[in-house]
C-alpha cells in the first residue's frame, strides 16, 4: 500500500450531504476484476452526460480542480454499498484525502486500506475549509498525518483525530494481512478453544 505522510494540494469542494457509493462509482463499473483504472469513471453520472461529454458545472471538470488531490464534502460521505471500488476510483483519479464531518463506516475503513486519509472535522471547520476550497487552484491545503493537522491556504490550522493503529499503518504503508499473520499463533489458539466451546460452528 502507498504511504501517506504529508500532502499539499488542491482541494475540490463538494458540499452535498450523503454522497453515496453509487454516485462515487456507479454499478456498471463494478464489473471489473481489477483494482485499477476506475478513476476515469469517478462520479461518472455527475461528471459526464449520457454521450460521455463532460458536464462543465461539475466540480472536477472545472479547470481549477482537475488536479485536485483533496475532496471537501458534506456529512455521511460514502454511504451505501461496501464496494471498495469507491476508494479505488478516488485514488485512481489522484485524490488522496477526503475531509468531511462524517463518513459511512465501511467506506471509512476501505479508505485506510488504499492509502487514502478520510479526515473527520466538525461541520463548522469543514465549512471554513469548504470556503477555502472554493477559492480554486491557488488555495492549496496541507495535510500532515503525523501532526494530525489540516492547514488552510490562509494558514489556519485544524487538528483532527485518527485511530493510532490506522495512522501507523497508513504512515508506513503496511499490509494488514502480513501484520495479522504475525499473530497466527493467537488465531490458532482461539480456533482450538472455539472448537471445544462451539463445535457446531
Amino acid at each position, binding site marked *: 500500500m502507498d504511504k501517506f505522510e504529508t500532502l499539499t494540494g488542491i482541494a475540490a469542494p463538494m*458540499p*452535498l*450531504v*450523503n454522497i*453515496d457509493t*453509487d*454516485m462515487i462509482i*456507479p*454499478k*456498471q463499473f*463494478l*464489473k*471489473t*476484476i*481489477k*483494482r485499477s483504472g476506475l478513476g476515469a469513471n469517478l462520479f461518472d*453520472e455527475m461528471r459526464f452526460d*449520457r454521450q460521455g461529454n463532460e458536464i462543465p458545472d461539475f466540480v472536477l471538470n472545472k479547470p481549477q480542480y482537475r488536479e485536485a488531490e483533496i475532496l471537501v464534502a*458534506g*456529512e*455521511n460521505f460514502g*454511504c*451505501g*454499498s*461496501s*464496494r*471498495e471500488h469507491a*476508494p479505488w476510483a478516488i485514488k485512481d483519479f489522484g485524490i488522496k484525502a477526503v475531509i468531511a464531518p*462524517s*463518513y*459511512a*463506516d*465501511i467506506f471509512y*475503513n*476501505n479508505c485506510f*486500506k*488504499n492509502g487514502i486519509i478520510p479526515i473527520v472535522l466538525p*461541520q463548522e471547520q469543514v465549512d471554513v475549509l469548504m470556503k477555502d476550497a472554493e477559492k480554486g487552484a491557488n488555495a492549496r491545503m496541507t495535510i500532515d498525518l503525523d501532526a494530525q493537522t489540516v492547514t488552510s491556504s490562509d494558514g489556519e490550522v485544524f487538528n483532527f483525530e485518527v*485511530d*493510532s*493503529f490506522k495512522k501507523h499503518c497508513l504512515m508506513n504503508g503496511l499490509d*494488514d*494481512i502480513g501484520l*495479522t*499473520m504475525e*499473530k*497466527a499463533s*493467537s*488465531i490458532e*489458539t*482461539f*480456533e482450538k478453544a*472455539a472448537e471445544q*466451546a*462451539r*463445535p*457446531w*460452528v
Partner: protein
Amino acid sequence: MSSPKTLYDKIWDAHVAHEAEDGTCLLYIDRHLVHEVTSPQAFEGLRMAGRKVHAPDKTIAVPDHNVPTTAGRDDPKNMTEDSAIQVAALDSNAKEFGIHYYPVSDVRQGIVHIVGPEQGWTLPGMTVVCGDSHTATHGAFGALAHGIGTSEVEHVLATQTLIQKKSLNMKVEITGKLRPGVTAKDITMSVIGATGTAGGTGYVIEYCGEAIRDLSMEGRMTVCNMAIEGGARAGLIAPDEKTFEYCKGRPHAPKGAQWEAALTHWKTLFTDEGAHFDKVVTLKGEDIAPSVTWGTSPEDVLPITAVVPSPEDFEGGKVEAVARSLDYMGLKPGTPLSEIEIDTVFIGSCTNGRIEDLRAAAEIVKGKKIKEGMRAMVVPGSGLVRAQAEEEGIADIFKEAGFEWRLAGCSMCLAMNPDQLAEGERCASTSNRNFEGRQGYKGRTHLVSPGMAAAAAISGKLTDVREMM
C-alpha cells in the same frame, strides 16, 4: 459477578482472537459469504502472495449480483461479457480454493443473504461477514453480521479474522403492536426516517420490543437488512424460540447432541438486565404507517398519507440535497404521495425476496390484474423460494395478474444485470436503496413493502395498501 452485557458485547467478547493495547482487535469470523462482484480482486491478491483460504469450510460463495433472472442464463452467452467474466472468475476461484459453492445452475442459488440463512449457514451467536453491505440481514439471528470491503474480504480469506475496534451499543425499541397493513419494511424505514442515514454510524443496533418479537424470522431479516441504511455497522435481534425453530433441520444447522449443545449456548444470547446502551431510540408500533420514500436517500421516507416535502422543510446541507433529489425524482412539493404515478414494480431483493414477502404481495394481487402498460416483476430471492412459491400457487397468482415471474438474483435492486429502469422510469420497489441511478441511469425509485408494491402495480400509482386489504 461480571457487569451486565449487551448481546453485542457477548458476541464480540466470544470472538476476540487478539487484542492490542490500543483496543484494536482481531475478530474471528465464523462465516464468510462471498459473491462475484467484490471478490475477484481478493482472490487475485491471495494468488499473488501465494496464500490459501484459511478456513474453506467456513467460506460460502454464490453468484447473485450479475446474473440475469431470465431463462437460459446458465449459458454465459446470455450475459454481458464483463458479467460472464465475473461469474466465471467466482466459479474458478471456488474450485481453486475449495470453498462451498452454489453455481447458477443449482436450485439453491440465490441472493447470498437469502441463501445463507436458508441453508443453515447463519446461526445465532456467530460472526458473519460478506463483501456486501446488506450482510446486516443475518443479524436477525442474533449473529454479528456486517459488510466489508474487498481488502477485508482478502484479509478474512487469508486469516479468518478482521481487524476491528468495537462499536458503541444502540438500542432501537419498537413498543406495542403494529397496525394492520404495517410490516417489517415499514418499521425499518421508519427507524431510518427517525434517526437519519447517519444516525447509526459508529453503533451496532439491537432491535427489541414487542413489535420486533412479534415479527417472524423473515420479517426480522427485513428489519436488520436495512440497519446499514441507517449507518449502523450491524443490526441484531436476540434469538428466541422462533429463531431456533427456523434453524432446526436446515442443511448446515447442527444435529443431535450438537444441536442440544448449540441450543444451550444460544439461550444465553440476550442483553442482560441493566446493560449499558450508548444511545436509545424508541418508536411506538402503533405510530408506524405504511411508508414510502420520496427522495434519493433512504431517510427521505414518509407515511403514504403524507405529501412530498419542500426543501425549506429542512436545514443545513439537507436543503440543497432535497432540492437536488426532488429535481431528480421529478416531484413537486405538496403533491400527495398517493397521487404519484408509477410505471414499474419490482418485488424481490435481499430485503423483501423471501417467501413471506411473496405471500404478502400475492394476497393483494389475487384475482386482480396489473394496470395496463405497467411493467411488474417478481424475483424470488433464491431458487428454493421460487420453487416453494410455485408449489403454493403464488407464482400463478402473479402470472395471471400480469407479473413477470423470474429466476433468483439481485435483479433490479442494483441493476448490475439486465433488469434495469430506463431513464425517467418510476418504480415502486421492495429493495433497499433509492440512490440516484441505483436501479438504472436516471431511474426513479420509491421504496415500499411488498404489499405496497403489489397495490401500486394494480392501481398504477403509489397506493395505501390498507385500501386493498
